[in-house]
């Protein structure tokens, strides 16, 4: 007995519900943009500066008491959140405390850290400080800039590669799919106010890499089929290619998701946000390579008459493009 995620010889019309899927994606993208503008992103200290302290205690954490203790020091905005994780011991209670960047200081001063630790020890003698991280406003500003450059740079490099290897319509289809994936991820992060930090950027880049990987496999097959079935309408060629590669698409997404699921549940809370971003990205990435990238290619149309170009024109440069 073999496990078959996808039966052999599927013949699904991926363009049948183009209006619903494509329209739905556009609506979701608009919603993401609105959420991003209205609610904004919950930037971590990497991007806005400030200090986070991770506390670990054997006694139950009372978020209110912690907050009151730290707020008394007059350090401005204080956020205390309790962290839960299946990998924790029974008597392990973890909290994250975030303090805004202090005026006129880059990273937080020695005395301030000592003050906070003393204030917390006063309300909870069992508390220990698992990590203290502080980022100054100068660096955080630069980090945002490099992060944006990194994402744009990665997208540009990939589009250039696809353009060289395929046709420009494919490159455009791929870039729209990527924008879709990145856009929806940012929208979800804004909606649930998930912490957006450097790890999220790394996750976004991974999503870009994975999504393109998926898209390229379908495109590769389309390229092959376009040559093989010269008379077949473009929409049928694209559908055929998607059907032929569907089994592989599902297998790869499946194995990757299995591995990520293990990490999501067992990997600990420190990287949970990061892993969640990648998991989400693989879902939207798989969707976008089936439903978005090809639609764009279909809309733009593809030059089919390669055969004509091959006719000898008696020119010694006849095989050189450009």
């Amino acid at each position, binding site marked *: 007995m073999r496990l078959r995620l996808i039966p052999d010889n599927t013949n699904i019309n991926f363009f049948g519900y183009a209006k619903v899927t494509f329209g739905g994606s556009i609506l979701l993208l608009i919603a993401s943009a609105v959420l991003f503008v209205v609610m904004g992103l919950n930037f971590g200290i990497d991007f806005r500066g400030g200090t986070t302290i991770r506390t670990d205690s054997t006694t139950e954490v009372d978020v209110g008491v912690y907050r009151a203790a730290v707020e008394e020091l007059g350090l401005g905005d204080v956020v205390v959140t309790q962290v839960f994780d299946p990998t924790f011991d029974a008597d392990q209670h973890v909290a994250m405390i975030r303090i805004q960047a202090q005026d006129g200081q880059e990273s937080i001063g020695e005395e301030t850290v000592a003050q906070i630790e003393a204030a917390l020890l006063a309300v909870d003698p069992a508390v220990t*400080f698992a990590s203290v991280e502080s980022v100054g406003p100068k660096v955080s500003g630069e980090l945002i800039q490099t*992060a944006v450059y990194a994402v744009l740079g990665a997208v540009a490099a990939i589009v250039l590669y696809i353009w060289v290897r395929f046709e420009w319509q494919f490159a455009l289809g791929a870039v729209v799919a990527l924008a879709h994936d990145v856009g929806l991820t940012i929208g979800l992060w804004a909606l649930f106010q998930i912490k957006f930090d450097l790890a999220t950027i790394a996750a976004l880049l991974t999503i870009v890499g*994975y999504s393109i990987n998926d898209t390229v496999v379908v495109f590769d097959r389309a390229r092959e089929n376009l040559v093989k079935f010269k008379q077949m309408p473009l929409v049928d060629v694209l559908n055929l290619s998607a059907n*032929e590669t569907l089994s592989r698409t599902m297998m790869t997404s499946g*194995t990757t998701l299995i*591995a990520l699921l293990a990490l999501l549940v067992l*990997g600990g809370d420190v990287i949970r946000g990061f892993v969640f971003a990648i998991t989400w990205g693989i879902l939207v990435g798989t969707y976008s390579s089936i439903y978005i990238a090809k639609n764009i290619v279909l809309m733009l149309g593809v030059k089919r008459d390669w055969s004509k170009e091959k006719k000898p024109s008696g020119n010694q440069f006849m095989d050189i493009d450009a």
Partner: protein
Amino acid sequence: MLHIARYKQVLILLACLAGVLFTLPNFFYSRVERHNDAITAQEAGRTDAEIEADAALWPSFLPSALVNLGLDLRGGAHLLAEVKVADVYATTMDAMWPEVRDVLAAERDAIGFVTREEAEPGLLKVRISKADGVERALEVVRGLAQPVVTLTGAGQSNIVVSAEGPVLTVQLSDAEKQASDDRTVKQALEIIRRRIDAAGTREPAIQRVGDSRILIQVPGAKSAQELKGWIGTTAQLGFHGVVGRTTNASTEPGAGNFLAASVNEEGVYYVLERTSVVTGEELVDAQPSFDQNGQPAVSFRFNPAGARKFGVYTSENIGAPFAIVLDDEVISAPTIQTAITGGSGIITGNFTIEESTNLAVLLRAGALPAGLDFLEERTIGPELGADSIRAGQMAALVGFIAVMAFMALTYGWFGWIANLALILNMTMIMGALSLLGATLTLPGIAGIVLTMGMAVDANVLVFERVREEMKVVKGPARAIELGYDRAMSAIVDANLTTIITAAILWFVGSGPVRGFATTLGIGIVTSVFTAIFVTRLFIVWWFQRRRPKTLEI
């Protein structure tokens, strides 16, 4: 048909063997770590029974490189410091003032008297009393300019002199500033490295980032504050002549003097000469020691120039006090008993043994050329790191088994071949990480787990293609061959694009993010290798042995 040249088979197997061999030490992490430490100790010339025993823990013919664990896995401290390079401009201009004064004084007839004016740091403003002599003054001061010694600044001079009425302004040229910045940062880097080495931690990473920043990562440091303690103190040592002693903190020290508090005598201040007799830069050695009463002290030795200056000063000032000043505080102010011409001495002052050791380290390392601003600091406790390793290992193991089960269920016998390739792939990633001395971080573990999912992708592409070809062509051999050939373009395109993102992540990211990019990048290379060469080799062997009529895939 379905043939792989003998030499290729050997190469593929050798590559796999190398992967296994280089991964091996990581399964005996603490044992190999002790072995490596012992070897380092032996190379440094130290040896005893314990070191011998540690060295014998691991056979020396086996590779002993280990995967570096990042700060987030091992615990430690991370600091990003910016060197205040502009500090140095002010010092340079101050040092230049006597020279400027002297050349201008020689032209007194044309320019009159010369006075230095208050100016912002980095500028030297000089007023001359005869305003019409300004042309001449500009000429002589410009005569002091020297060419900048760098490749890019070649041909430019080090100072820019301008005049506004009777006031001359001297400042460093842009080329000289650049050269000065570069020198300052290199010097700071070197001094920080020496101080941290002196603290004796394992594998600190100290590197320059951009133009004026230094990144310091020290595994095992208790906190960023402790690390700052090691490097932060400027430890500027000077020996100054004492003008007077007072208990009034608001005493006006007078021109050329400054007021410094005493460390040991509460409420006591010394009025000292601004110009030091000898500075800490002229020290060649400093060691913790004990004075004649058995109290902890620091003994030091000057270089010849320092020794001479110190000798001249002490022989001229017998009976007068002088002050040993560290970072603008008086450590002690003994009276000069005899001329000290030997160039060595001892600093006493209520030290604990730890303090005297620290002071000796700071003095030996020398002063930082400029102050540091700390832009970013992170401390990760060792327990958190250990928890992360445990969680990461567990997740990786479970993910590994789940992916293998899934592959076996889907592709049967071929799935097991892919699984074998996956196991080899994992060992090759670890082997490559060890060999390259790359750092494994928590996101790096995530990268490995992600690679696990994606590594089977290349095999999936091939197997799916073989399935398809089975329907079209005659004979399994042809189907396998076509499957590999035709899946190739998709494999190459898909993995090259992922490599592009990994490369960009590596260049842009730092710390944990870079760790992720490293494992992702290595993982892609090894997974393509195992999928294309290793599984193909296994399938060919199997095929040649069995000669099956049909394929169950």
